[in-house]
């Protein structure tokens, strides 16, 4: 099982067709996730995290499309698979949960039935068997009294319970990869921690890899072994979670890390303010030439404004996309 990664993305480009012209909403996206690994994708709103996830499961729809690159899942290229073959992968081998547990469940269908449907759809089970498995699945996400709860409708459950049901649905078929796109932003902080912990444990039990997407670097670094930081449609740095905090290499990542509140920092540094990164994220139609971070970067030089930096391998492990990286 060693060697071959579970999913490998190489130089993926996602085009946005806005009527008159094509712009790359994301480009040069490369990363790999091993079996059972936890990998995080972090970046500001609009940097292209969700569309990258959609590309992986073959659900980019007009005006978005894959403009180039390779997505290899379990050794097989999947970016050009037929719709039917991609559907077989979705929910079965690659599952995804969303940030909106309020709307991601069908309001007129009992939650047990929605879980059971996965076994019928992907595993060819009879409804009788599937309903039994649904009770077990609900029990596995620690929903109390699952035999009764299977008959509940989504609106009878709290937000945290609904997200548990979503996890039960997503993990029903023991997928190889779970994509979690901001899975807890809509929840209370205390519930968030519980849900993340639950998700991590269940995936560990099943050997399911996690691709966790969030704008919260702290959260992602906590959960994931490795983290990729995205900025304006490109991955700018990819590191082990511990390294990215200890010695962030890209100026954008440095800014992100400096802007994180840290336990104890107030006591140590007195009442120093959290640092913010000056400037705003460029719009997709007006990405700057060269390094896209250059208008906001303190270290920018002429080359930054003209030449796109390549992804350099770091000695300590990891990749960074900056002409003058630390």
């Amino acid at each position: 099982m060693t060697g071959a990664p579970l999913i490998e993305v190489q130089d993926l480009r996602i085009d946005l067709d806005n009527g008159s012209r094509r712009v790359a909403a994301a480009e040069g996206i490369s990363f790999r996730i091993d079996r059972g690994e936890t990998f995080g994708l972090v970046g500001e709103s609009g940097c292209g995290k969700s569309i990258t996830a959609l590309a992986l499961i073959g659900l980019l729809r007009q005006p978005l499309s894959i403009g180039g690159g390779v997505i290899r899942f379990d050794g097989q290229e999947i970016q050009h698979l037929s719709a039917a073959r991609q559907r077989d992968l979705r929910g079965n081998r690659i599952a995804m949960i969303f940030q909106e547990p309020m709307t991601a469940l069908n309001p007129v269908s009992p939650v047990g039935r929605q879980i059971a449907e996965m076994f019928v759809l992907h595993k060819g089970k009879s409804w009788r068997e599937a309903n039994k498995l649904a009770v077990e699945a609900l029990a596995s996400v620690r929903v109390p009294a699952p035999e009764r709860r299977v008959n509940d409708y989504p609106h009878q459950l709290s937000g945290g319970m609904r997200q548990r049901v979503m996890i039960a649905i997503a993990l029903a078929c023991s997928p190889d990869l779970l994509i979690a796109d901001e899975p807890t932003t809509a929840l209370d902080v205390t519930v968030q921690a519980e849900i993340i912990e639950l998700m991590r444990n269940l995936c560990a039990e099943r050997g399911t890899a996690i691709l966790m997407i969030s704008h919260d670097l702290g959260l992602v670094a906590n959960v994931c072994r490795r983290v990729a930081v995205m900025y304006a449609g490109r991955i700018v740095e990819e590191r082990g979670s511990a390294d990215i905090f200890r010695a962030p290499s890209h100026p954008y990542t440095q800014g992100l890390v400096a802007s994180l509140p840290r336990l104890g920092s107030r006591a140590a540094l007195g009442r120093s303010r959290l640092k913010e990164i000056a400037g705003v994220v460029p719009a997709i139609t007006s990405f700057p030439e060269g390094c896209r971070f250059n208008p906001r970067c303190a270290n920018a030089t002429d080359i930054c404004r003209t030449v796109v930096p390549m992804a350099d391998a770091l000695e300590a492990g990891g990749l960074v996309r900056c002409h003058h990286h630390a």
Partner: protein
Amino acid sequence: MKLRANLIIGGALFALAILVGVLAPWLAHTDPVLDANLLNAEEPPGWTWWFGTDDQGRDIYSRVVYGARVSLTVGIVSQLINSVIGVALGLSAGYWGGWWDDVVNALTNVMLAIPSLIFALAIMAVLGPGLTSLLIALGLTNWSFTCRIARASALSLRSQGYVQAATVLGYGDLRIMITQLLPNMLGPIVVIGTLGMGSAVLSEAALSFLGLGVRPPFPSWGSMLSDARDQITTAPWLSVFPGLAIFLTVLGLNLLGDGLRDILDPQSRSRRT
């Protein structure tokens, strides 16, 4: 409380009509066709003849009871055909969009432009009178409202989180339409359907009134009204009772439609429990 009254009264009236139709042979006092006796012609309602008799001496009560069979069969079956056609076309058009949506829209507009009774009349003229022709004619001509509602619902539902979630979970188009979209539009569809049953009962009456319905002498409420029109002043009971039967059935269906809408909305269901 008022919503529940809708459901109970409407359901009771509709159930009563169905019960009467099913139990007609036991409820009727006489054979609706054969037991004619000119000696009892045009008796007013009373103890022996509850709803009176017609000009051939047939018992109106027994004929109204048997007439329920035709009216309800036509109402239920033709509306079912309409609902299936309307939902299949509207749902797929709204979900898929594109050229198929254009085709369905054009078809719906044509159907809306032609009064459905006139269209049904034309079909009846080709097929000839009789129960089967009635079912076909009324079943093919009144699906445009259902289609419109289904299409509009599908359009708004397809961007819902749970429809997208289903796509992500590997559901195929058909499964999404049946499990995610259809149940969520059932409320308005059922309401339109029950109202449509009411109007099919009326259309049956109208077509039978015009002599295109079920062949006499077998009774239907519409043909009874048609037969009674010359005696409306001299023997009003001939029109009043079949008319009342139509009125109560249609009223029941309308109330039932309202009541069902409340029951089918899970939000309101939990408010009650």
